[in-house]
């Protein structure tokens, strides 16, 4: 394993991200819209139903959403590297495919976590109050796990695709359902069994649950379960991502 090579791949992703201000602001707009529209819109009803403060409830879900979208996208961004040719530069370099995969994933995941923290700060401005400031580091651990899982997932998909045409399909048939069936917007308690079952197989549900546990002390699966499940899935997705990445031929 070449740490320097992983580092340089990581820093490249950060540089690219920090240079595209339009992208940063653009990808913050959607989470903020969800937070404001839903948070304030459904707030009174949620309160009346005895759910407590809805903004506090969905803020962790919206942070997870921002991380989900950013990390899948940075993973899939590899298609652009393929089309613009930069992928070839890394593939002919004397470093292993695994190192390339690790560097890319860490880079994409770091970008996604930064995006998640930005949404977290914005949500505080809009009135979100975390229950415990000292568990913010734990929240960041959950953000990192979500980011790693879905960056690796995006890379695995990108290894199979040759252009961005399939992206819309993936967005509508995988990413949106993952988000809506994760409990990010509503509590999983008391839902039809089918929905709860689906959520049990949704990695994002554990991420949302973990974030909510860390930030507002509300858990469905339990923090320990969340951590273990997410860590296992992260390893599995990294392996799948590395495998499909290693199969790329140009």
């Amino acid at each position: 394993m070449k740490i320097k090579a992983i580092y340089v791949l990581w820093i490249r992703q950060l540089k690219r991200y920090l240079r595209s201000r339009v992208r940063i602001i653009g990808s913050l707009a959607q989470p903020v819209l969800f937070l404001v529209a839903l948070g304030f819109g459904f707030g009174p009803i949620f309160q009346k139903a005895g759910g407590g403060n809805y903004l506090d409830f969905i803020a962790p879900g919206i942070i997870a959403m921002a991380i989900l979208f950013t990390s899948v996208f940075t993973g899939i961004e590899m298609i652009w590297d393929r089309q613009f040719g930069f992928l070839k530069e890394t593939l002919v370099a004397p470093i292993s495919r695994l190192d390339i995969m690790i560097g890319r994933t860490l880079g994409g995941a770091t970008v996604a976590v930064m995006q998640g923290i930005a949404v977290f700060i914005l949500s505080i401005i809009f009135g979100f109050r975390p229950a415990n400031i000292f568990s913010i580091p734990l929240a960041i651990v959950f953000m990192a796990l979500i980011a790693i899982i879905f960056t690796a997932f995006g890379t695995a998909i990108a290894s199979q695709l040759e252009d961005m045409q399939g992206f819309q399909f993936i967005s509508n048939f995988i990413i949106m359902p993952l988000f809506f069936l994760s409990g990010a917007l509503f509590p999983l308690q008391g839902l039809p069994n089918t929905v709860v079952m689906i959520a049990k197989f949704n990695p994002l549900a554990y991420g949302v649950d973990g974030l909510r546990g860390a930030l507002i002390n509300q858990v469905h699966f339990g923090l320990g379960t969340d951590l273990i499940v997410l860590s296992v899935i992260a390893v599995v997705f990294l392996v799948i991502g590395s495998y499909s990445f290693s199969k790329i031929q140009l």
Partner: protein
Amino acid sequence: MVKNNGKKSNGNKNDENKNNGIIINVSNLTRDFNGFRAVDNISFSIKKGEIFGFLGPNGAGKSTTIKMLTTLLLPTKGSIIMNGHSPITQPDKVRKTFGIVFQDPSLDDELTAYENMEFHGILYDVPSNVLKSRIEQLLKMVELWDRKIELVKHFSGGMKRRLEIARGLLHHPLILFLDEPTLGLDPQTRNHIWNYIKELNKKEGITVFFTTHYMDEAERIADRIAIIDHGKIIAQGTSDELKKKTKTSFLEDAFISLTGKDIREEEASTLDMLRMHRRMFKR
């Protein structure tokens, strides 16, 4: 039986070749794409310090051959030995020995010229104490030192190509692969680039493997030329040898006499059309 004999004699050749300074030895190389044979049983060898031109019409199998030599594509059959290692079984060892300038740009547009160089240097493990001075020297050579902090997306096609050449040389490769390095460039830039490359070849003794479909380039630059068509090498030798063989006085005539046709695009056969479609789908 015939195959066995072929392999044996190749094996012997390999041993001799080490002494003769052969740096690339390709034998019986074949690549199929879904039943279509892009490269068909080609064999050739290149001496250390030689400039070798791979000449052929569009879709003849030039890029496919380069991809196999540079570890990007696995051959269906055949063997390659580069500087004593096989790109198929020891890709990492082979990757250190060559630099490559691809047909289409492979730079990161969102990084500066300097950052693209730095990225490459670190990936190739160029010692950090020489990296800076080498980048400076190479960027000065391709006359891009003044623009080192500009993002590559603002560069013209010629500038990008020059930057790629500089980058391909950063890790001091033994072999430089150039896949149609001057395609789409104006004559001034073409001339400029070839002058660098010839000088490098003379000064540093770098082996150069380039593909082109420009006859004049092959004739002017290459020490030896292989002509490839429909995936097969139909002739190889110096420009003079090829002319003598075909009793022509220009390489262009020799090329036509060997391939039968002049410009491939103008009378594309169904096979060429198929290739084109395949390429388009590949994208």
